[in-house]
């Protein structure tokens, strides 16, 4: 079917009459401008970091993102614990929390905080896929799925955070479940300040041209999240929490002095 389909298109494009496809469709190296953007990201001064931070402070309000700034992991962990204590679950009465298995989130050591004792914190399981002969037990996947559904708060990190639009970039990786940022009523994202980018242009230039990013690619699922779920479908009145999280709390961890 593909062949017939494409040959219909070729015919419509007049390929048999000599119209040739363009040769420069796919780019193979960054433009001069993109090179400048890349250098700009690499050589960012602390003054520029501060400018990004103030930009982020300006845009989070109108986008209904709750911005929290802390200077250490311990402080951040305490603040997240306070949030978990303060908020109430939307669907049930029991408090459950789910989170990514991610270096930064692991370092928060939420499980060891005494004030959270008695509140189950479910960590995304990582499956060993090196042994191809042993299939991933679907029961384990289903178990985590049920835990995510039970959770009222989901905690993730993000690859980057764009200051100009408060956009979080999340790629799918083992341990970094997609549903943690989606199904719970409250999404908590924890990002180090150095992961701040100033514009979407910087984000896309990095994803496209930075050697390490290029190697990993966009993965099978890249999600850009700018604010909590919202709708204006009833009389154009803005309501938060249509299907995804009703609240988005963004924790930025500054460099320790």
């Amino acid at each position, binding site marked *: *079917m*593909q062949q017939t*389909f*494409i040959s*219909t*298109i070729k*015919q*419509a*494009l007049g390929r048999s009459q000599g119209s040739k*496809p363009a040769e420069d*469709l*796919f*780019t193979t190296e960054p433009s001069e401008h993109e090179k400048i953007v890349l250098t700009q990201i690499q050589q960012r001064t602390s003054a520029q970091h501060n400018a990004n931070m103030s930009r982020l402070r300006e845009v989070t309000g109108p986008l209904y993102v709750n911005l929290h700034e802390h200077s250490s992991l311990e402080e951040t962990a305490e603040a997240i614990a306070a949030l978990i204590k303060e908020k109430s679950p939307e669907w049930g009465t029991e408090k459950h929390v789910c989170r990514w298995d991610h270096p930064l989130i692991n370092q928060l050591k939420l499980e060891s905080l005494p004030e959270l004792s008695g509140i189950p914190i479910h960590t*995304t*399981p*990582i499956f*060993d*896929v090196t042994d191809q002969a042993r299939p*991933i037990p679907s029961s384990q*996947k289903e178990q985590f*799925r049920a835990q*995510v559904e039970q959770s009222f708060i989901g905690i993730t990190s993000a690859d980057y955070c764009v200051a*100009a*639009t408060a*956009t979080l970039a999340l790629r*799918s*990786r*083992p341990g970094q*479940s*997609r*549903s943690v940022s*989606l199904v719970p009523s409250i999404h908590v994202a924890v990002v180090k300040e150095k992961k701040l980018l100033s514009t*979407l242009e910087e984000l*896309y*230039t990095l*994803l*496209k041209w930075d050697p390490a990013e290029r190697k990993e690619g*966009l993965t*099978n*699922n*890249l*999600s*850009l*999240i*700018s604010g909590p*779920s*919202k*709708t*204006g*479908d*009833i*009389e*154009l*009145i803005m*309501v938060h*929490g*249509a*299907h*995804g*999280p009703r609240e988005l709390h963004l924790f930025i961890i500054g460099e320790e002095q």
Partner: protein
Amino acid sequence: MAGIDSEKYKQNAHKAIADPVLQSALTSLQGRLGPATKKLYNTLPEGQELRKIAHQYRRKAIDNLDVLLETLAENIRSHGGQVHFAPSAEDAVEICVRIALENHVRTVVKGKSMVTEEIGLNDGLEQAGIEVTETDLGEYIIQLAGERPTHIVAPAIHKTREQIGELFTEKLGTPYTDDPPTLTQDARRALREKFLTADMGISGCNLACAETGHITTVSNEGNIRMATTLPKLHVAVMGMERIVANLEEQQAILRLMSMGAASQQIGGYVSYVGGPAAPGHSDGPEQFHLIIVDNGRSKILADETFREMLCCIRCGACLNICPVYGKIGGHSYGSAYSGPVGAVVTPLLFGINDASDLCSGESLCGACRQACPLEINLPRMLLALRSKLSEGDPSWQVKPARNQERWLFRCWQFVNGNRTLYNLFYAVARKAQKILPTQDGMIRKLPYPFNGWTSQRNMQPLAPKTFMQRWQEKQEGKK
């Protein structure tokens, strides 16, 4: 709902103009989104110039569609996804139903997608005994009400909160309320259940990126992320023209689309989907299918006059500015595509004669072109459609729609081209008009076959003297 009922254009437009609820909704919609979008174009870091550049990106993609689609298919397959090609609407529906039946799917959750409306996918699935739930709040409301969307981005703006409250009480059994947050919460509760239990999720595709092998979905509600993350199967349906070559082009158009669609810098949730969940990942669908649909697009591609229409990304910006849409609303167009975009695309996809009123109804004022994030020349194509209707065109199976009109214009052309004849016509008409009924010095009613002109407006009578006569008299007076 596949197919169109555009032949009821005039009738539906009359109804729409007489509907005060719709009128105030349209005024409010255009008052908010139109100016907000215009303002945002001025904030583009690259300047307004980006709109022209993005138009070229799109045009280049369309001119190289064969290469781009094959690249996309190859890349998605290498990520573990499956790609299907559907020449017609029926093929696309059949492929989707087959995938569903092979996987014993009983329930489907859907994200808003124009192409699935166009091909009538919901009917096809329902006929196969599969339950389909639209999950965009606006689409959900009109699905419950059994209606058609009235706007590409805001499908249910024609309904008041009171009507939605009554609808929810009747269909969902929730206590009556007219409070939008409570109504949204009622829908959220009902749809969460659907998301968590659905066997398959269906989405559209805003703009695929050939080079990386990804489709993109954009929503503010998060419903498309839910529909494409939680069920075991994800089927995406895309019109074959919704693709660009590389990521830098894709992101530029995506930002422009967000501005055009919802006056945003970027949509709340943008997802790049390249395939099913990778091995070792704890969630995401086990299968990913992409159905690429032609359904009349290759015919548009082959005609240089209309090829530009394939650059359209269906953001709906032209609806938010069009003075005609702003009065008659989306239902009058009788198709999934309304407004200026619908007036061009519906005739091209479903038959120019069958949808002839659509292009004639638009005002050619040019506002749509100015509002379009890609500055697509819709007025030019509206005019081209009118010309086809007037002259006929066998390659589009267009019969000259109004023989009488054509004949009248030929006569007029003849009279206009001959000064003596023109003066004679003028002298007779000036006398003859005295027997016509008037109101405040204006002609209230013209006789058949000109009566259409005065059905909605009064006409200025012919002046006692033509400009040429007055000019001549003035020149003689000077002497």
